[in-house]
């Protein structure tokens, strides 16, 4: 395009945009004066400009998502002291909150974990304990009962009464609050404060997040005394000034400051009247839907609290009785001396007002008790559907959970209340049971299980009964899909040799998803027939005439349609440029649309193809029975991969309401299937563990000398580990919760935690050849700079010390006087000599990938490289010399190590079985890799395989996926 023409396009683009859509056509006709190419160019730009959705709107880095949410510290079923965790309710500023069962009293409790940084100061912790107990001991109906403030496994927690309901924050943003309800909440809040103040307890952090509204309307004030733990500076005594609670950055983030009193904002001395002010702010917000004080920054907000009078509430809600203005003025006076002297007076005024409203005897008296308070500016949503489901499950809809998206107005469909909802597992085996598909009558489910040792498709009645193996074939069979008439099942199989492992970052747990040929079999016995040579995720059209599926390489996947009786596949032309994969395509029941997943996002596209539209962030979409909803797994941070439902308008081809949750995410809830009447939803809840196993072995022959023995067990996630020189103990990193620590296990004993500093995450330990020391990688758990590096400690965990900053992957040299490591500054591998405290560089090349391991005689270093695109194994003399490629099969070779004799280099192929090639003692002779382990490939995933020093134990961390299928009955 010539510069002149470009300038012309630029001009017309802006001129056209300045005009309304209606005038543009006429404008362009005139301006382009018959130059159709010019006109098309400008129209193309305008269309792109006006397209919905984001495009390079946030910086590249912000687009680059760095994985999923931090995992919860505790998982369901885990115990903390006497409390058995049922599920995560949510995360607050202080820490996670769980629903748990108290095993001693068999009652449900809310278990709030306290972030470790809040509990470092013992003195402060003691005062918090005192005050929280004192408030709870008042036994006031509006103060949440604290059962216990305790500590178990170095975790501090508060166990409290468990309240079924919402926080006031949730309540306000959910549906409109009527005046009577607002007054009710405020009265109960004031009553709680009055009792606490009388006992000398000041809350200091009254805000909607700290007020629970029970489903029966009862109000419970939470977290008395907790502010003591969070104050910066000062001793927290009443006589002392309270410093600002605000601290940004990596430390404690206290959430909102909008409810602070002026004296708090100015860091002056506070007393009980600070709570009266804060409750006044809460009342103002309930009445108007707006916060009285706010600003662009924390400083602006503080300034506004100290200096500015809020806008009169009546201006924001003209239906308010003028009398309420007096109450607000008395609660929110800047000077404490001008406020209500006692919370009891506040309560009394509120009660009088309420009575006057109810009896219609207000002096101003135009107001009805049913006057509706406008919801907050950011739109109301309804949770009724989810509430119905969750309450019957006995799951608290506490305020911390389910931060719902508030992007769209609520639709009728989404807010229709549900009747009885039940939820039950239909499989309970160990191992993998997933990928359920309903028969059309909802009576039967076909699903995949690995209980026979490979993946097979089973059939089961929803009401119970035996599991019938439908495939019974040595090959893997997966991804079943029932035909709409219930007579056939389409599935993916490796039985004719096609097998391509599409390993997705599924659920953040690297769940491999197999691709293969697509077959169709009679649902109740008979021979299957192959209809497509290569594909994944087959799904039927509602008339049973065709099957759609996705196929093709990473970054080149396409969606195809094939007649269900077999025939030529036809590509559905979808503009999906750049998507690495297209997964789970399915027709809407009315066949107008296809939903699919790409880039962790649910898209829809016309069933004829064309331009897809983003529908919602999520995975694995499936259609509701009447095309009126899409179910998916929510992958947003904090949503726990729970199952969500999005109302959908097929006529308009877009979402017709807000997404709402169906589950709370016991595991990774996904792979939903909906019965044709829409009443039953089945899904898989996945969980993943990685544990160490030891295989008796001879690294020279190589000969397996027995069955693998577990070294660790349970729900642990271990990535790196090291065996002691005597072969009797292991150290490992446990990534069980949000943090990782180093643990040690001696054979036959219980594991012992070696590191536990909450400020650090520790991983990748290596045991010194003399058995005395352990080097490991340590990083600050909240991303602070400067503390990342290699540390050393005694083998019992004593005396940890920093050795090298900005470096990782330490591995001891055989003599024990030095170790090799990777520097993060240049990515090269160095050797560090302990005696001289000096480092020397070994490698000098691009693409080194993490770990380097010295050979047992100390002459060679073997390491990974990604310089050639895949992961290959290389070696270099430690004393200097050229590096060489040891093995490169164009696949991924991980975790190389050299056998004790130096004759062999072992490695793990694609995280699966272990292979070997000739090593330095055979002068790196070229030979075909030899497979030395014979684990079944089905679902196999090994990490950090290596041998004991004598070569007689092969140790590795092995992933196991457990998954069960649950059925949710949405009732009538």
């Amino acid at each position, binding site marked *: 395009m010539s510069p002149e023409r470009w300038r012309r396009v630029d001009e017309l683009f802006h001129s056209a945009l300045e005009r309304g859509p209606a005038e543009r056509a006429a404008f362009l006709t005139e301006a382009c004066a018959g130059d159709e190419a010019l006109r098309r160019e400008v129209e193309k730009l305008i269309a792109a400009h006006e397209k919905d959705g984001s495009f390079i709107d946030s*910086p590249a880095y912000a687009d680059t998502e760095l994985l999923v949410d931090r995992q919860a510290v505790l998982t369901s079923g885990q115990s903390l002291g006497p409390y058995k965790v049922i599920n995560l309710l949510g995360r607050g500023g202080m820490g996670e909150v769980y629903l748990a069962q108290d095993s001693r009293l068999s009652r449900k409790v809310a278990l709030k974990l306290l972030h470790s940084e809040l509990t470092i100061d013992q003195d402060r912790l003691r005062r918090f304990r005192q005050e929280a107990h004192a408030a709870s001991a008042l036994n006031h109906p509006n103060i949440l009962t604290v059962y216990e403030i305790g500590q178990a496994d170095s975790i501090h927690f508060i166990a409290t009464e468990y309240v079924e309901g919402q926080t006031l924050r949730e309540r306000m943003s959910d549906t409109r609050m009527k005046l009577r309800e607002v007054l009710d909440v405020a009265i109960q809040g004031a009553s709680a404060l009055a009792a606490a103040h009388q006992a000398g307890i000041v809350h200091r952090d009254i805000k909607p997040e700290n007020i629970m509204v029970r489903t029966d309307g009862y109000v419970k004030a939470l977290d008395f005394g907790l502010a003591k733990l969070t104050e910066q500076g000062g001793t927290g005594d009443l006589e002392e000034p309270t410093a600002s609670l605000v601290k940004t950055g990596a430390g404690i983030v206290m959430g909102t400051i909008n409810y602070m009193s002026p004296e708090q904002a100015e860091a002056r001395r506070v007393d009980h009247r600070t709570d009266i002010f804060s409750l006044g702010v809460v009342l103002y917000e309930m009445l108007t839907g707006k916060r009285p004080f706010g600003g662009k920054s924390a400083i602006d907000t503080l300034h506004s609290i100290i200096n500015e009078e809020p806008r009169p509430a009546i201006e924001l809600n003209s239906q308010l009785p003028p009398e309420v203005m007096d109450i607000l003025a008395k609660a929110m006076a800047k000077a404490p001396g001008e406020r209500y002297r006692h919370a009891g007076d506040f309560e009394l005024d509120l009660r009088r007002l309420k009575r006057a409203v109810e009896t219609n005897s207000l002096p101003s008296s135009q107001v009805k008790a049913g006057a509706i308070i406008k919801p907050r500016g950011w739109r109301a949503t309804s949770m009724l559907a989810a509430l119905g489901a969750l309450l019957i499950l006995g799951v608290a809809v506490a305020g911390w959970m389910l931060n719902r998206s508030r992007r769209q107005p609520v639709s009728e469909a989404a807010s229709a209340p549900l009747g009885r909802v039940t939820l039950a597992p239909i499989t309970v085996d160990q191992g993998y049971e997933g990928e359920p598909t309903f028969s059309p009558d909802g009576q039967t489910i076909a699903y995949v299980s690995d209980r026979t040792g490979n993946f097979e498709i089973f059939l089961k009645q929803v009401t119970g009964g035996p599991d019938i193996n439908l495939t019974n074939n040595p090959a893997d069979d997966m991804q079943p899909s029932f035909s709409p008439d219930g007579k056939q099942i389409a599935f993916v199989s490796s039985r004719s040799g096609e097998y391509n492992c599409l390993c997705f970052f599924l659920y953040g747990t690297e769940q491999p998803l197999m691709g293969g040929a697509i077959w169709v079999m009679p649902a109740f016995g008979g021979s299957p027939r192959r209809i497509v040579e290569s594909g994944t995720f087959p799904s039927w059209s509602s008339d049973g005439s065709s099957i759609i599926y996705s196929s093709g390489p990473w970054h080149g996947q396409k969606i195809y349609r094939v007649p269900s009786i077999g025939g030529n596949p036809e590509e559905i032309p979808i503009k999906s440029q750049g998507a690495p994969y297209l997964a789970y395509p399915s027709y809407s029941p009315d066949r107008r649309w296809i939903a699919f997943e790409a880039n962790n996002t649910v898209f829809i596209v016309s069933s004829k193809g064309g331009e897809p539209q983003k529908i919602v962030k999520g995975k694995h979409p499936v259609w509701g029975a009447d095309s009126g909803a899409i179910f998916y797994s929510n992958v947003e941070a904090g949503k726990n991969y729970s199952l969500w439902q999005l109302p959908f308008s097929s006529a308009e081809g877009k979402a017709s309401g807000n997404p709402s949750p169906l589950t709370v995410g016991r595991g990774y809830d996904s792979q939903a299937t909906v019965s044709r009447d829409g009443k039953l939803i089945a899904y898989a809840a996945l969980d993943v563990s990685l544990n160490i196993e030891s295989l008796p072995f001879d690294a020279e022959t190589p000969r397996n000398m027995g069955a693998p023995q577990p070294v660790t067990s349970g729900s642990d996630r271990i990535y790196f580990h090291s065996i002691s020189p005597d072969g009797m103990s292991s150290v490992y990193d446990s990534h069980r919760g949000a943090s990782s620590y180093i643990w040690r296990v001696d054979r036959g004993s219980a594991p012992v935690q070696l590191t536990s500093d909450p400020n650090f995450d520790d991983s990748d330990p290596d045991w010194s050849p003399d058995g005395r020391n352990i080097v490991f990688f340590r990083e600050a758990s909240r991303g602070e700079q400067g503390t990342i590096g290699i540390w050393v400690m005694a083998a019992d965990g004593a005396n940890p010390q920093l050795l090298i900053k900005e470096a990782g992957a330490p591995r001891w040299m055989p003599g024990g006087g030095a170790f090799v490591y990777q520097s993060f500054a240049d990515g090269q591998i160095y050797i560090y000599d302990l005696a001289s405290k000096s480092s020397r560089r070994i490698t000098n090349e691009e693409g080194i990938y993490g770990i380097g391991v010295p050979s047992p005689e100390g002459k060679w270093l073997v390491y990974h490289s990604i310089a050639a695109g895949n992961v290959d194994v290389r070696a270099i003399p430690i004393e200097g010399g050229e590096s060489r490629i040891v093995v490169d099969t164009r696949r991924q070779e991980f975790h190389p190590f050299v056998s004790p004799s130096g004759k062999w280099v072992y490695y793990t192929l694609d995280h699966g079985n272990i292979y070997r090639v000739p090593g330095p003692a055979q002068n790196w002779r070229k030979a075909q890799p030899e497979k030395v382990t014979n684990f079944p490939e089905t679902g196999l995933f090994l990490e950090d395989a290596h041998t004991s020093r004598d070569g007689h134990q092969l140790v590795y961390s092995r992933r196991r996926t457990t998954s069960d299928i649950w059925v949710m009955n949405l009732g009538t």
Partner: protein
Amino acid sequence: MSVTSSPPHEVTQLLVAWSNGDKAALDRLMPLVYTELRRLAHHYMSRERPGHTLQTTALVNEAYLRLVDQDQMRWENRAHFFGIAARLMREILVDHARSRQAVKRGGGQYMLSLSKVDRLASRPDVNLIALDEALRRLEAIDPQKGRIVELRYFGGLRIEETAEVLGISPATVKRDWSMARAWLRSEIGEE
């Protein structure tokens, strides 16, 4: 062990020299900044914990704080620094996207590397490689618009900051940005 960053005064002097018209200073400056940004990016991409999202501006700010002696700097030097950083960030990110795309194996079988080190994969909403190529075409037609996209999208700069770096008015930046964005979007047929 002596792996240290470049001393702050070196980068500072080069920046001052460059903004005073010494073109050669830029050639010496780029590798220093590049090394630091790569190091930081590598650090974040390989070590950042789940749940964190990183902003370019944070990264560039961090590089700036580490590399530059702030007491000696004027605002316009800081703007220059951000200008350089945006170009380098683009290289780093597009390189990263390319190397990720390359990690797959042949024979019709594809696999994403699954090592722990690699668990922290990036999944850009936008195909960076396609965007980079389209941006090259835009730069050929209209260098200023290309530069604006680079600063805004890869450098994470706001409108005002972009205007500062380029020495043009915020209104012009805004106008050019909307045109450039629309053109790129239609060019790469985004979704």
